[in-house]
């Protein structure tokens, strides 16, 4: 007999949710086009749109990494699937988003279900390595798509349309589409995390054995979270393809997966608005540094190392409990 109380008793107190922080963040973001019309350079709009697209992907990763404690190192594959489905459909002359989106969600769900079923049989470091390997598999598949640009990528002839309208074509309206999607995903994941499902997922991070004994099927719950996470990341891929009007295997590279993890950690693991702040900060840092020198990674790499060594990033115990020495 499972009751709500069981899950509550198992879960450690959740990090205090601060919807206020998120609301302030969204209001500030929504005001950006206004600032642009008052004289802020227009490329800010492009940069922040891109940052918000990655924030959606980082949010989705935070659901499994922050809440579930599953360090997935192949998350960029889902962005890539979303981008490629969009790109291939447009190339074949079909721009309708209402056809592309269900296809993306379905494909991401299938890919997540299959790779998740294999990856989740393992724990700790093996899970990291296997998700990385599956990410590479998707990457090589994209490289082999010679009909759609192969290694060079694919330039899109057009942007997606929505029932014949073109909300993705104009910079400001596209900005609001992305902002709306980000807010929607934030709300959705917040609801999931606060639900009983979310509490069990979090409890399984702390002590999977205990949750299993309580009568929950931990493997199934993690797999469902993994699938939801992959679908949301696929959505960000759709937006990314529409922003850049270009898709390439680089969208699925393992460096990109690593960057997503860093965005989540940078903002604070398990805090959803943290993932958004992390993505925004990351993209800004990249922008500033890459304008400064083409060898910006020489500075950025050590920054990551120092960040990990000297800030605890709210990481304590996530993997320690899951992937510890005896994997108990």
């Amino acid at each position: 007999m499972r009751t709500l109380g069981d899950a509550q008793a198992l879960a450690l107190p959740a990090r205090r949710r601060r919807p206020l922080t998120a609301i302030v963040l969204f209001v500030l973001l929504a005001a950006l086009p206004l600032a642009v019309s008052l004289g802020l350079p227009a490329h800010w709009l492009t940069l922040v749109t891109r940052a918000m697209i990655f924030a959606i992907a980082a949010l989705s990763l935070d659901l499994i990494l922050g809440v579930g404690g599953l360090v997935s190192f192949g998350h960029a594959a889902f962005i890539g699937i979303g981008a490629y489905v969009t790109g291939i459909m447009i190339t074949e002359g079909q721009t309708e988003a209402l056809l592309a989106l269900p296809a993306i969600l379905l494909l991401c769900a299938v890919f997540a279900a299959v790779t998740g079923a294999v990856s989740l049989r393992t724990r700790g470091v093996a899970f990291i390595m296997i998700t990385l390997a599956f990410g590479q598999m998707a990457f090589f598949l994209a490289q082999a798509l010679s009909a759609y640009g192969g290694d060079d990528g694919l330039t899109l002839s057009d942007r997606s349309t929505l029932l014949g309208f073109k909300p993705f074509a104009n910079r400001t309206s596209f900005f609001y589409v992305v902002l709306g999607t980000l807010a929607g995903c934030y709300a959705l994941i917040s609801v999931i995390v606060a639900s009983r499902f979310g509490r069990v997922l979090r409890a399984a991070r702390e002590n999977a054995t205990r949750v299993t004994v309580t009568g929950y099927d931990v493997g199934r719950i993690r797999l469902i979270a993994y699938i939801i996470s992959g679908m949301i990341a696929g959505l960000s891929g759709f937006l990314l393809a529409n922003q850049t009007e270009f898709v390439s295997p680089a969208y699925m590279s393992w460096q990109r997966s690593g960057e997503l993890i860093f965005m989540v950690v940078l903002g604070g693991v398990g805090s959803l608005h943290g993932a958004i702040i992390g993505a925004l900060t990351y993209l800004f840092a990249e922008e500033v540094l890459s304008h400064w020198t083409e060898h910006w990674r020489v500075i950025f790499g050590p920054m990551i190392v120092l960040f990990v060594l000297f800030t605890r990033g709210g990481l304590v115990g996530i993997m320690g409990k899951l992937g510890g020495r005896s994997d108990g």
Partner: protein
Amino acid sequence: MTTSLLIVQTLNGLQFGILLFLVAAGLTLVFGVMDFINLAHGVQYMLGAYLAVTFVSLTGSFVLGLVLALAAALLIGLALEFLVFRHLYERDHLDQVLATFGLILLLNQAVKMVWGAAPLSVPVPEFLSGSVRLMDGILYPTYRFALIGAGLAVGGLLWFIVEKTRTGMLLRAGASNAAMVSALGVDIRKLFMIVFAFGTMLAGFAGAMAAPILSVEPGMGDTVLILAFVVIVVGGIGSIRGAFVGALIVGLVDTLGRSFMNDLLRLFMSAPSARATGAALSSMLIYLVMAIVLFVRPEGLLPAKGRS
């Protein structure tokens, strides 16, 4: 002449597998003993190759250049251990992954700054430049044979050290239970240093040996690193024997898949679609093999003893 192609490609797969083994062995040792996941391990392979390029051209001798490259790779590895890795052993895997990921970004870019982004190469040494005649009409480069031999010798040496020496005993004990080994009075810090130096040398050696037959370029370590992960996961994490078996499987499957997938598919479909499908399938093949192995045996084929 498919038989001769099969023989040559099998040897190529073997040679590729041996290279992967050299990289994976260090990775799996470091993980087994210190519970440390080092993404920057592939960077050691890349550095080994680049240092070989520099020292071989400086000294004009392949052997001397190789020795110097190994020594330099070891120094860099130890410096990284002292500056970064040492502070990560106690951390969780997520911290280790991120910090070593940052190191990859730094070192890939640093290599570009020092050596440029264009691919470089090392000439095959004079005394190994010929071919060996296997049978009528089948020639195989001597250098690749030497690589297979060197890899097997290193593998044998590694097996001997791990199984037959006192250091090896401590290694195996440390892999099972580092805290207990430390409590019994063994200097665990020193043991970690030795293990780490060992792993670094193996990866550097693999990179330096591969320099004459592969193009030396930034990021070359990343590909090898991920393949080494596949090898370790297939073989069983922390197990040297597993790494060996896994490396041969991955090397052979990948090489043979790339050369025969097309012919195989052409039995079922037209040539152009066979080419397209073959390209996609053969680049995904090892990951499919990995998925199948893990689905049947989540622990890998030969999991290390003493680790649950």
